[in-house]
């Protein structure tokens, strides 16, 4: 039986973008598995999953930030700062539960700084976070003193590598976080407020939404998630360098935008973010396997981001074709 129009509508409403992304992911798998015999090996797929963990968590926070119509180019360094906190706590021999808490605590604190500057200082998010990027980078330098934390105790690593009921702990944490975010976004007034603020701030304010509080909380949540990512990072790699997290911000923005969350705010897709992150990480992994130096990574990500946005504008008819033909007149 042919699909009825109603079910077609449902598919489109549920995720035209998600389906496109899924197709993109499958295509990527196909291409790379043909190009390299190693791509589909279980060990390689596990590596891709392993490399996605931090970006999945940070991307979740970025989804909220973009959904309210904001942006944050400093999230990678927030994770770096959180990782320093976690690393120092490990070195100081604090109990494990406290170490695990320190990550989100640091992250939330920095998220509060970012949020205050943007929301209460009333500074455009992009400019504020470019400025904060410089400040956080200096802070990382000051805290690490030009060297790096390495040879950290293995307590956290054992925790991160735990597999209760056969499922790796990071997977459980990520699924829980995404479930929580989904419930928050779809089933609570707060979720509605986030989308309302992103859609039209003035109208949301008229409707009685505490716009500033909602925006601030989005940055706070993003900071907290960066802190959680930091715990995973330190547990996995057991070292913290000056460049930890440096490339994470663009990756997060690209993944979330690829996933269909609007850069203008008002639209968020958690499943899209998930697929976007997986697609990005598969591309990086695949390119490395076929011998492209990892330096090309940011070129690929940047071009992919731009291509996705242009495609979106073309499909939605925002780019008038006659203007393209005539040049930029």
């Amino acid at each position, binding site marked *: 039986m042919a699909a009825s129009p109603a079910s077609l509508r449902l598919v489109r409403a549920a995720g035209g973008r998600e389906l496109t992304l899924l197709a993109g992911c499958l295509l990527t798998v196909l291409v790379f598995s043909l190009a390299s015999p190693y791509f589909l090996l279980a060990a390689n797929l596990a590596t891709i999953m392993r490399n996605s963990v931090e970006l999945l968590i940070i991307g979740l926070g970025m989804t909220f930030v973009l959904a309210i119509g904001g942006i944050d180019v400093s999230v990678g360094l927030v994770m770096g700062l959180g990782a320093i906190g976690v690393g120092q706590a490990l070195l100081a021999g604090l109990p494990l539960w406290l170490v695990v808490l320190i990550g989100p605590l640091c992250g939330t604190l920095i998220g509060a700084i970012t949020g205050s500057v943007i929301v209460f200082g009333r500074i455009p998010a992009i400019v504020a976070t470019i400025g904060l990027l410089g400040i956080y980078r200096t802070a990382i*330098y000051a805290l690490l003193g030009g060297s790096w934390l390495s040879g950290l105790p293995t307590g956290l690593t054992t925790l991160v590598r735990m597999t209760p009921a056969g499922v790796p702990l990071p997977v459980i944490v990520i699924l829980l976080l995404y479930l929580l975010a989904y419930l928050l976004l779809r089933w609570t007034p707060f979720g509605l407020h986030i989308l309302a603020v992103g859609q039209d701030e003035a109208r949301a304010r008229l409707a009685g939404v505490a716009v500033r509080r909602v925006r601030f909380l989005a940055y706070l949540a993003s900071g907290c998630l960066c802190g959680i990512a930091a715990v995973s990072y330190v547990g996995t790699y057991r070292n913290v360098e000056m460049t930890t997290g440096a490339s994470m911000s663009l990756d997060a923005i690209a993944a979330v935008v690829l996933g269909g969350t609007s850069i203008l705010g008002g639209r968020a897709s958690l499943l899209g973010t998930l697929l976007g992150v997986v697609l990005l990480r598969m591309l990086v992994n695949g390119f490395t396997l076929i011998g492209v130096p990892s330096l090309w990574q940011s070129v690929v990500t940047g071009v992919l981001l731009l291509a996705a*946005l242009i495609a979106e504008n073309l499909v939605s008819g925002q780019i008038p074709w006659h203007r393209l033909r005539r040049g930029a007149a």
Partner: protein
Amino acid sequence: MKNPHHRSLLLLATLWLVMLLIFVLIRPAILQLSMAESVLHFSSMLALVGLGQALLILSGAGMDISVGGMVSLTAILTMMAVQAGVPAALIPLLALVIGLCLGLVNGVLVISCRLLSLIATLGTMFAYGGLALALTGGATVSGVPGWLLPWGRGTLLGIPAHFLTTVMPAYLIAAAVLALTPLGRWILAMGNNERSARLVGIPVGRIRFILYGVSGLLSGLAALISLAWFGSGRPDIGTNMELESLAAVLLGGVAIAGGRGGVGGVLAAVLLVVGLQAGLQYLNISSSWQLGVVGLLLILALLSDRLPWRFAKRV
């Protein structure tokens, strides 16, 4: 003091005085002619990049985050072309053309493809900067001919040659265009109110497209200076320039939403930012601290618009 532009310039002047005072108190020897000369020397590239940034922001076209990437990639591509056999005499022309093209790519993305300027130039920043690193593997590209070096390193009348021949004419032209020509009025008008500018028939899209090209051209010029100065193309030469140029433009009294400000303040702010960096260098403070200080300045410049300047009413 009710005029917000005067307020911004007051903040700039205060910061200048505070900086000079602090440096002089810590190390009086800092006040010497050679110091001023080296500040001018270091400020040329940022001044050019900042001018393009300032014009874009003035016109309300948003900002250009990719300036640093453009400088790096232009320097690299120019030198790679020379190594591939293009005559070295063409270096100046090559740098300008490549910079212009990279800037026009931004223009196409923002104006023709209607992407948000911040996300479009964020994408090209990583694409350009990444390309500069990826093409060279992070190594410098040598091969700058000897005749270019005196321009990059020497002085004329006590002023660095490249500052005298590029920055001063560029700022004079920009100031004249802004103050005296219809084009300048248009740029300010469309930054002030895009809708009414369109209604009175100003070709907003076309002018902004051109301004993205100008930003690229000036970045190309900055890349040329870096070539003549260092004698080689460095893939990381433009790193952090988006932060520094935004700080300079906003400290210089240009309103972030556009329509208000001038280029004179921008030049003063560029000298402030570079002077601060040079001073910290002189005091043997690691360059890693400079980034944080510039970031702080950027946020301070924007916060100053928010301060309740109550006393101003009584003045």
